[in-house]
């Protein structure tokens, strides 16, 4: 089996796919790419099924040794990428000869996704190859990559043998993160007394954020009397701990929680939330359930158009 050698792991590089479903009742969260659409598009670009496993990189990408030719694609935040010393563009299929694949510091965002034809052949655990960092399973031994790791690759479509990086002149710019302002997240307010006032204040992404949650700093919202009894939570839930600083739950979030809920960020906006860098400003905009349905449908349509466009190009 072909394997990539990890020469440098990057800040936090993990194996992710579309996530684990149907196990929340056992305390197992979804995990998976923080922007599932972005990873799905990268997969489509290299000819994979959209459910294949790829890499999610954050802040600083990895350096990898490629023992043979392969086809990859990059989506998400702008990430400087080189094959040996040849710069590589994002948003399109890239055919690479054997060599070294190197990434720099991400710009204009925090996370990017890499798909490889054939996918990353990490074992499927509970129906997914995603890394569950909290549970310590999935992906590569349930953890982020470290230097010296070997990343097993699946059998991909035969990549044409090329002598230098080869790619088409077209690209996809699918992500609404780049057509909409990522500093505005839309949410369905709950019945909590402070639910609407979330929108009245300016917030900043806290450096303590991770794949479990985006921590927000700003005005202190009154949390009120918590009944303290844990209830199920979801990805997108806005929790309000006693310190009044909300937390937006992301893909690695726990399955139950005892804090009051201010509402839920729309699933189609979570990919944008994943791009917020520490200190960046963020606003929340309340929407009605009806409006939310329209926005979610629009996102699905945009994704369907990108999917079709890629299918026609390939």
């Amino acid at each position: 089996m072909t394997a990539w050698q990890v020469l440098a792991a990057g800040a936090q590089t993990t194996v992710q796919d579309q996530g684990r479903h149907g196990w929340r009742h056992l305390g197992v969260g979804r995990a998976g790419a923080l922007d599932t659409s972005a990873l799905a598009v990268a997969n489509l670009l290299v000819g994979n099924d959209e459910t294949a496993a790829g890499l999610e990189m954050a802040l600083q990408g990895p350096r990898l040794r490629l023992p043979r030719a392969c086809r990859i694609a990059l989506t998400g935040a702008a990430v400087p990428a080189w094959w040996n010393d040849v710069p590589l563009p994002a948003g399109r299929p890239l055919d690479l000869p054997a060599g070294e694949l190197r990434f720099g510091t991400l710009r204009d965002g925090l996370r990017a996704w890499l798909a490889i034809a054939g996918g990353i052949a990490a074992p499927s655990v509970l129906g997914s190859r995603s890394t569950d960092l909290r549970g310590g399973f999935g992906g590569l031994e349930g953890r982020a990559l470290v230097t010296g790791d070997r990343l097993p690759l699946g059998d991909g479509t035969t990549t044409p043998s090329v002598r230098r990086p080869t790619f088409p002149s077209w690209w996809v710019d699918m992500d609404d993160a780049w057509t909409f302002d990522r500093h505005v997240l839309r949410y369905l307010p709950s019945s909590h007394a402070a639910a609407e006032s979330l929108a009245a204040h300016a917030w900043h992404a806290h450096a303590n954020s991770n794949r479990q949650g985006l921590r927000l700093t700003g005005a202190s919202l009154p949390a009120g009397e918590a009944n303290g009894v844990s209830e199920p939570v979801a990805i997108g839930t806005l929790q309000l701990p006693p310190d009044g600083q909300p937390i937006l739950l992301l893909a690695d979030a726990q399955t139950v929680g005892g804090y009051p809920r201010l509402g839920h960020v729309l699933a189609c906006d979570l990919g944008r939330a994943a791009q917020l860098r520490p200190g960046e400003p963020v606003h929340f905009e309340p929407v009605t359930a009806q409006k939310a349905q329209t926005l979610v449908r629009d996102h699905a349509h945009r994704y369907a158009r990108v999917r079709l466009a890629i299918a026609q190009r390939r």
Partner: protein
Amino acid sequence: MSAPRFEPLGDDAVLVHLGEGVDPAINARVHALTAALRNLDLPWLRDLVPAYASLAVFFDAAQLDDPARTVSDLVHRLLAGMTTTKESPGALLEVPVCYGGTHGEDLADAASTLGVDEATLIARHSAAIYTVAMIGFAPGFPYLLGLDPGLTLPRLATPRTRVPAGSVAIAGAQAGIYPRESPGGWRLLGRTPLMLFDPARARPSLLQPGDRVRFVPIGADDFTRLERTP
């Protein structure tokens, strides 16, 4: 029983409240409703997450025209047909525990704070039949209802950074078991050699929500022997 209350949990789930607080009767009803929904084999159902007094119903939004309506109609119909149960419908499992010493570092302290000897604390902790009210915090972590009210102790003032896997612990009115090494602020009475959660198993979690549990005291030799049994 009060009427159920519904709250959207994002765009693909509804949270069904069956009551408030920590109440064994309400929790039993949550598990009965969970079982009834699961038995229907609904094609749009993605997950059912029971908690103390509520149940999250995760669905595939693409398969339903009006998910909120569908869920509330179903829940009302199922609850109307349900008899009141005091006991959860789950299986009864015995969990061996080696109490005290290096296996349960807080046993001696807990006993002296409660004004009883260690043997009495062990006897009272292992006499009860607990219900897995919900699973959360970490994969496979059971929140157990049924602790003897006389054993109520606050959490540790400073949580431990490392609690060993299998630790059997109490905090407030709750009891639980840590499936893997993790930080934690509950008081450690003992350890079970059983593996609570293994994602490679066909049934990854030893305990399911709604199951009932009895702790069986064992000696250190038995702990070592059982720990080696896969």
